[in-house]
């Protein structure tokens, strides 16, 4: 079979998880780190080779082929339906392989420095391997059920990693919150899968996505509350995607998840797990575009709202990791918008319907690089000053030159300044958005401006602004080599990422396309970005009271944004006041008085009965024999009676 070595990509992290996990503390911390990193290095090299092999050999007359090197049936469910486990290779899964393995390797290396001396270092590496394994399994899935299984595994390993500092109540609460919110969304995902498979009798992606869609006709035909079953299924599946990708209003878990170790945030909450939702939509894209365009439009509007909403919140946050968290939510909104504004599968010189798909995947790729760079940079800063708050920073450029430069590169990329990678991918998204409608284009341009503003607010507050105040008697210093090398590597990728001829590799219909910039849109974007950066420079480069005055003038908005528009409070209200008081209380009462009463009554009856029939289990053999004989005669009698 072609490319069957790809199985190793899954097996290696699984083995290292089992090895590190089972060895436990018998392994020296350093050994655990080295084993994990080495296995990930091998996985990364294999992924690169897979990408090279795939993109150099699997193109037949300009169309990328879909391969399944492995697929074995795991369980039979009924006559036709079966659950498989396998590996599917196509442009987006190969792309995700590269993204996940790269970022994961960087995080593995980085963590050797960052987590040094932490209690539970081995556990940390075991969980990292588990997470990488599940994420790779997710993207390589050949069918939606396998994807769901790994989807849940990703959720579990993310839970374990967020709650790594399990002695910290905030971390425990955050891990629970992340798990419950995403689990809640996954519930809808599962229902969507079941509806879809009920009508199509298959879980398999190839059967579902390739072909003329006749397999979907059953689902198209039956309607439920005004929409076809297929629309419902696809909308439910999107809710699952929205949960993992932190789309409004399911985004509330992501900012809290920052309680986890910072490298984990870089891996899970920037580059890999949170884009699983985008990947899911991209995977199911042929169905969305061909049969349920109304859902796709909903995705576009939801993404656009989330992008702006999160950007506004990011402007006023003071915890640097939370700024990045909201920035991530906003950027994922961009990717969702790009998918949502697509109008067809095709992408060619005169047919731009599928541009959004390509743009979205491109942005996923570049975003993974610069956002993990930002998170790792933030980790490096936190490592140096032992605080997440902007107020404790300022003037750090003198002490941490490498962190400073790489962080600046990432900021320029996310702000969309040429020639950094974010500029190119964001420009494609803008072009697609303007193609969809001018309103959408302007909305996204404003959001991009906000992005540039809050990123440079962050940058100046960390590295410029006031002079660093020394507390505790020692100056911050640059992080060790194991941490700066990943930073530099990712910065390099951010510098050159934009020049990858991405359209040649990943498009919705698997044909090749040459990216070209739309000059008008590019100029508008850059001007807006520069203006926003300029504003940020005026306000935050030097310490002054302008920002405070501004905040004072727009106190209502500022406070609302600072409190993240009270979404958490809304959830609190719904869960605590409405669900707990309105539903749970009555149930609790019912449980305590009726059910418990019945059970207690039952217990009382049982005790009484067993008192009464104690003789039944008396220990007396004569009695046993009597029961035996009597039962035999009774059964005989009844059976004969029943027969005649």
């Amino acid at each position, binding site marked *: 079979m072609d490319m069957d070595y790809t199985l190793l990509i899954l097996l290696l992290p699984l083995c290292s998880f089992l090895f590190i996990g089972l060895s436990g503390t018998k392994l020296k911390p350093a050994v655990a780190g080295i084993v994990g990193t080495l296995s990930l290095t091998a996985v990364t090299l294999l992924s690169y080779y897979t990408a090279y092999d795939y993109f150099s050999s699997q193109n037949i007359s300009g169309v990328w082929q879909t391969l399944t090197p492995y697929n074995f*049936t*795991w*369980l*039979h469910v009924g006559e036709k339906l079966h659950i498989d486990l396998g590996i599917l290779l196509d442009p987006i899964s190969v792309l995700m392989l590269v993204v996940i393995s790269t970022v994961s390797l960087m995080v593995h290396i980085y963590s050797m420095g960052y987590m040094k001396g932490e209690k539970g270092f081995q556990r940390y590496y075991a969980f990292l391997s588990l997470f990488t394994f599940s994420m790779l399994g997710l993207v390589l899935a050949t069918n939606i059920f396998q994807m769901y299984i790994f989807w849940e595994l990703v959720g579990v390993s993310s839970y374990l990693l967020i709650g790594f500092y399990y002695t910290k109540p905030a971390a425990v609460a955050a891990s629970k919150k992340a798990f419950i919110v995403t689990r809640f969304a996954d519930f809808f995902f599962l229902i969507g899968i079941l509806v879809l498979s009920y009508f199509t009798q298959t879980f398999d992606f190839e059967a579902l996505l390739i072909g003329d869609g006749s397999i979907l006709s059953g689902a198209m035909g039956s309607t439920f509350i005004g929409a076809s079953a297929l629309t419902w299924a696809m909308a439910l599946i999107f809710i699952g995607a929205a949960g993992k990708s932190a789309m409004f209003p399911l985004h509330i878990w992501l900012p809290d998840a920052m309680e986890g170790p910072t490298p984990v945030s870089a891996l899970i909450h920037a580059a890999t797990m949170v884009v699983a939702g985008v990947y899911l939509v991209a995977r199911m894209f042929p169905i969305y575009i061909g049969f349920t365009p109304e859902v796709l439009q909903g995705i576009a509007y939801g993404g656009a709202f989330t992008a702006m909403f999160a950007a506004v919140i990011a402007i006023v946050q003071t915890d640097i990791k939370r700024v990045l968290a909201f920035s991530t939510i906003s950027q994922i909104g961009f990717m969702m918008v790009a998918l949502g504004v697509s109008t067809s599968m095709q992408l060619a010189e005169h047919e731009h319907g599928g541009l959004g798909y390509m743009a979205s995947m491109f942005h996923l790729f570049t975003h993974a690089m610069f956002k993990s760079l930002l998170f790792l940079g933030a980790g490096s800063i936190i490592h140096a000053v032992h605080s997440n708050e902007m107020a404790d920073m300022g003037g750090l450029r003198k002490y941490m030159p490498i962190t400073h430069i790489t962080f600046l590169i990432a900021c320029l990329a996310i702000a969309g300044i040429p020639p950094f990678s974010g500029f190119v991918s964001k420009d494609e998204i803008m072009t697609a958005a303007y193609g969809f409608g001018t309103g959408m284009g302007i909305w996204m341009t404003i959001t991009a401006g906000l992005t540039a503003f809050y990123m440079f607010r962050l940058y100046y507050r960390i590295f410029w602004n006031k002079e660093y105040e020394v507390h505790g008697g020692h100056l911050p210093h640059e992080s060790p080599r194991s941490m700066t090398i990943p930073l530099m590597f990712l910065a390099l990728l951010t510098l050159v990422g934009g020049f990858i001829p991405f359209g040649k590799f990943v498009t919705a219909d698997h044909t090749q396309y040459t990216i070209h910039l739309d000059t008008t849109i590019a100029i508008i974007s850059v001007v807006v970005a520069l203006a926003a950066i300029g504003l940020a420079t005026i306000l935050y480069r030097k310490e002054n009271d302008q920002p405070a005055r501004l905040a004072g003038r727009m106190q209502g908005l500022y406070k609302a944004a600072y409190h993240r528009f009270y979404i958490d409070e809304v959830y609190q209200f719904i869960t605590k006041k409405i669900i707990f008081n309105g539903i749970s209380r009555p149930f609790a009462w019912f449980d305590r008085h009726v059910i418990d009463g019945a059970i207690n009554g039952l217990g009382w009856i*049982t005790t009484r009965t*067993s008192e009464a029939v104690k003789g*039944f*289990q008396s*220990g007396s*053999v004569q*009695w*046993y*024999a009597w*029961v*035996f*004989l009597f*039962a*035999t005669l009774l*059964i*005989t009698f009844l*059976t*004969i009676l*029943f*027969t*005649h």
Partner: protein
Amino acid sequence: MDSFSNFLFMRSEVSLLVVILALLVFDLTAGKRGMRYFQPIAIILLAIHTILHLLPHEAGIAFGGMYTYTPMAGVVKTILNIATLIIFLQAEAFNSERMSNKKGEYYFLTLVTLLGFYFMISSGHFLLFYIGLEMASIPIATLAAMEKQSKRSAEAGAKYILMAAFSSGIMLFGISYLYGTTGTLYFADMPALISANTLQIMAFVFFIAGMFFKISLVPFHLWTPDVYEGAPTNVTSYLSVVSKGAAVFALALLLYRVFSNIIEQWQSILYGLIIISITLANLFAIRQKNIKRFLAFSSISQAGYIVLGIIGGTPFGMTTLVYYIFVYLFSNLAAFGVITIIENRTGKVNIPDYKGLYSTNPRLSFVMMLSMFSLGGIPPFAGFFSKFFIFAAAMEQGFYILVLIAVINTIISLYYYLLVVKAMFIDKNEHPIPSLRTDSYNKASLIFCTAGILLVGIFSIFMEKIELFSFAMIQ
């Protein structure tokens, strides 16, 4: 077929007989020092026997139809072999003087009962069937009474032999009427001659009551808790897994092969017995303090689930039944393994004694927890899959209400299985059972069981292999 090739065809029986005789000779000739190696030698010989007959051979008959062999019977024999092997690994109690000054007896007698079960499964004639049954039950009584100093053990042995004799009497009475009305004892000749007339139904019920006694379905179960509690734990685990598994399979074979004409009758009998077995056993299990008694009731309710596989009367039902036995073997023996270890070292057998076990013996608690999860049917452990398939088999034939009742009972059973887990992990105890050391035999048995619980469900190959053989079995 000459008699030599007849014997050759019964190769699994002959090879087991060789093992038995070898152990007997060793028991008679080895001195006090040689006896120390009895356990490893018995294990090795049985392991060789198991591996030699791991996969079933082609179907056929010998001795003019007295003996029939189907691949499915071969699979069941392998399952019984594996179970016995695990039980031998856990047999450390018989190394001590407390049980017997001639430890060989234990292994010898156990293997003789196993041979009896072999004949029961492979018989094609009621005579051989009955001989197999008796060959299996008389030594069990001896085994139950083996703890010589214990009054309870003696009581268990006496109760078992009395009840077994009584049930044999009833069963023989039924068989004699079957012979009287059909004029044959060959399984192959009987189906055509059996119909739903009063006399044959009576004969059938009398016969089958004896089988229900072996499987311990309510109300033929009364002996079970007393014998399980009194007998040495190792013998209890043999009773609960091997004896029960073999009897269920034999029952299914007879119902399918001999009594297929009166399927409506036996389906309604099983219907009623399943419901009362599962429900009553569950209600009694909740109240037990002694863990062996607790598992006795648990095994009665599990028997009800196993019989669910028979009631459909389909090959798929047979597959799920054998699979259930296979899974049940690992789950139950894991629990009994832990109980044996704790009982042998501390003498404690009550559930409250297990409080706080996790703090001192995390590994044992972990194995016990897995076993309880698997018995309760929590995914992804093997017990979940076996329950799932057996429900599916019954649903397929339209027994919806029965399955619903079984599912409700599963939830009740979860409650009491989790009570054990709660005792071990959550409840506090001032004086928990101290940290225990286990020998490598016990360790191996627990690792084996744990692997079974974790892997048998997830890897579908086991189910598929069993399914492969089940279609060949109903002609």
